[in-house]
């Protein structure tokens, strides 16, 4: 039996054991060693890929240092997002306030790097020391004539989800400030893909082949000017719903742009996403192209996927990821490989997400909200998982337990989205699960 803290018990559910009533959306329990980060992290990961913007972290050095070049979010052009800028507040600044330093930093960095916009992330102590970040941003924006957006991301003011929300608010203010002449009706914004390992380029190529225009990608391979004219698109496609749903709803409210929830992971969800988009535009030509594309792509990868399925069939998987959309897609993708999911958890899914997850899972599957290393290693063992899918912090838990691992997070270097991504995913899972090293463990 996995030993659980009393206060954590309601955030863990085993399907079929009792009626489903999982608690979620709570603050992390002190001392539990949550895998979650903070509000700042939520904002930072969402806005990070905007490549021609200046990202300035306002606070002591840690928050900037730990998020330097942290995501494999590729850019096809500028690389400004890969630099780590901080106001590096010292004790003196904390005593006397950091506004002047922030002003100086913004000014010099904008002059030197000539970004299209600047995001200023407030970290934990900024509100406490009384800095008026908004006023500084307004002033610098006026002086330098570019948008300078304050991001209200003090770490303790909620969870990572509140950070997503703050990032969405900043993006929303940016959208609608530039009008382009070349946006047609059959156009979309791609929300919630961060172009890890170039994934958004795969998706863009699908839309090109379908005859659908991509107005902006928010935020993978993102550009400020594209985002500013994102209000002109006909449809918002929302992948990472936990992070981007708020923006989609804001855009629907203000500009009437409809949105659709999609996922580009796994053959099933990828095909669904393209059909959904084609359906929306009600254009037989687009639908015909979409059908041809999907048929072609699937036939290209299916034979190889079948080979992996043969090798992997009957294995058991555990999943621990940030949000629910990925967990849902992963369960389906694993099923395609003959792998059953025995543990699934997320950092920040909401009630609806968990209900969907519960429906999709097999009986006996353990569903966990905001887990910790001891719970995860305990359930890996108890449920006999053969492979663990997660991120950097989950990897050593798998390895120490003698279990295969597949990285499905920020640091991945192989694209796992799109039809080709499903094949890559199968290969990744296989290359860990089939390794001979486990015999020694």
């Amino acid at each position, binding site marked *: 039996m996995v*030993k659980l*803290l009393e206060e954590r018990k309601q955030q863990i559910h085993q399907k079929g054991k009792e009626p489903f009533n999982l608690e979620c959306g709570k*603050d*992390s*329990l*002190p*001392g*539990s*060693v*949550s*895998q*979650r*980060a*903070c509000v700042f*992290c939520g904002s930072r990961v969402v806005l990070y890929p905007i490549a021609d913007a200046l990202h300035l972290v306002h606070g*002591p*050095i*840690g*928050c*900037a*240092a*730990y*998020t*330097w070049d942290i995501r494999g979010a590729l850019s096809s052009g500028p690389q400004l997002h890969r*630099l*780590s*800028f*901080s*106001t*590096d*507040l*010292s*004790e003196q*600044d*904390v005593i006397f306030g950091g506004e002047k*330093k922030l002003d*100086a*930093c913004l000014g*010099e*960095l904008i002059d*030197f790097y000539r970004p299209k916009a600047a995001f200023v992330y407030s970290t*934990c*102590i900024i509100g*406490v*020391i009384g800095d008026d970040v908004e006023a500084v941003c307004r002033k610098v924006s006026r002086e330098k004539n570019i948008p300078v957006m304050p991001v209200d991301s003090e*770490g*303790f*003011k*909620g969870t990572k989800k509140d950070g997503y929300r703050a990032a969405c608010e900043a993006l929303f203010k940016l959208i609608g400030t530039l009008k382009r002449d070349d946006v047609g009706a059959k156009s979309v914004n791609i929300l919630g893909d961060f172009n890890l390992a170039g994934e958004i380029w795969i998706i863009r190529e699908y839309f090109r082949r379908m005859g659908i225009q991509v107005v902006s990608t928010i935020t993978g391979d993102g550009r400020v000017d594209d985002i500013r004219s994102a209000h002109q698109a006909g449809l918002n496609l929302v992948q990472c719903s936990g992070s981007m749903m708020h923006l989609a709803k804001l855009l629907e409210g203000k500009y009437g742009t409809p949105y659709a929830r999609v996922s580009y992971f796994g053959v099933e969800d990828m095909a669904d996403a393209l059909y959904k988009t084609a359906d929306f535009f009600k254009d037989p030509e687009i639908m015909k192209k979409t059908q041809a594309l999907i048929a072609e792509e699937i036939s290209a990868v299916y034979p190889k996927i079948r080979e992996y399925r043969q090798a992997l069939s009957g294995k058991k998987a555990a999943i621990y990821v940030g949000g629910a959309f990925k967990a849902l897609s992963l369960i389906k993708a694993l099923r395609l490989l003959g792998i059953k999911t025995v543990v699934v958890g997320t950092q920040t899914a909401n009630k609806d997400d968990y209900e969907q997850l519960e429906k999709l899972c097999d009986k006996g599957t353990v569903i966990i909200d905001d887990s910790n*290393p*001891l719970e995860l*290693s*305990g359930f890996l*063992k108890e449920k006999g998982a053969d492979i663990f899918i997660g991120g*950097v*912090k989950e990897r*050593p*838990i798998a*390895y*120490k337990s003698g279990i295969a691992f597949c990285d499905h997070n920020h640091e991945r270097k192989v694209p796992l989205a799109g039809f080709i991504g499903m094949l890559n995913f199968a290969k990744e899972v296989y290359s860990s699960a089939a390794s001979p090293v486990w015999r020694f463990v």
Partner: protein
Amino acid sequence: MKFTASRNACKLCSPLGACIAFRGVGEATPLLHGSQGCATYIRRYLISHFKEPVDIACSSFTEASAIFGGKSNLKTGLDNVVKQYNPRLIGVATTCLSETIGDDVNLFIRQFKKEACARDLPELVAVSTPSYRGTHMDGFHQAVKGLVEYLAKPGPAAERLNIFPGFVSCADIRHLKEILEDFGFSYSLLPDYSGTLDAPVWPDSGETKEGGTAIEDIVNMGSSSASIEFGRTLEKTETAGESLRRDLKVPLYNLGLPIGINETDRFFKLLQRLGKGTLPRKYKSERGRLIDAYVDGHKYVFDKKAVVYGEEDLVIGLASFLSETGIRPVLCGSGENSGKFKDCIEAVVLPQHRRGIDVRAGADFLEIAEEAEKLSPDLIIGNSKGYFLARKLDIPLVRAGFPVHDRIGGQRILHLCYRGAQELFDRIVNALIEKDQDASQAGYSYA
């Protein structure tokens, strides 16, 4: 151009250093008093280097804790760490948030102990590590000092050596322990994360509790016959060794990190003096082989220009080593700023290298990079965060220090003593040879 902003920091925040030091105590769990993100970011950063689970608890501040203080969160946090890990020690480190709102962590801990009077609690050691003060090295040294001040007790004088190696690799710690054992010393080494942050896979029974400096060994530090502390910049500062010297009269010897022959000779001479013994044969041979290697490789490295960066004391050690092999450390950079960096570098390099070294304390990576480009260096020595510069200048980066996020085995890089210098020297020479070999038209298969 000198920027007010930090651009690609060449330092980390103090709680990170404290967490590493606390992980070097047997059956200890670090707990950060602040936002959840602090613990998670630091865990992620350490995991990427050590490739180990690094569990760091947190008091997980909310808005309410920021307004009313983090007392109840800290108590809950301590309680839950005890329930989950049953550690022998919890090392509490503060963060910028808890310090700025003025939480009195020592008071909270006293109250926690009082309320839990009947229960068997772990040792609770608190250190003040606001991230706006100093760097990860300050956090590291603060935690080591905090542990010693809290635990070390006076006692009947014993023939035992205290050794405070500073922030070195797991392989370095293991090597130091081997040396001390070969010399026949009984010793206490703090912190010893060589087993906790470079551990075997878990046995069937699950996570092990092996490794780390035993609490008893820290207690005994108060009655040891001498302390050795590595790090030239630490001399005459408020460190663990200084605290033992002042309060418990344990003589303190400050040495540079023993990297290369000169600095290692100093260390071994001191060991001989303190142990009243001779240099074990094994190390005499290692020293001999190292000199032989210096001779074999001297032409490949002579007058080559190196950029070195990282923690001040690591850079000082590396500069001493490079200089004695004939490599000019033309640019020495650090995000730290002790005020002693330049003097220490000048004290360890050869006179012919002293002039013209660009020493930059309190620097960030883009400042180092911009200066480096003007110097057309031949190689770079430092952690993996300087890779972008090596790529830009198309010169080798010989990885040393922390973090090494882009290779496996960062925790097993050996830097210290003759054996460490041997490994570094071989890697440096071969990196230079490989660069020439790859660039040559003929592609010789000999060097």
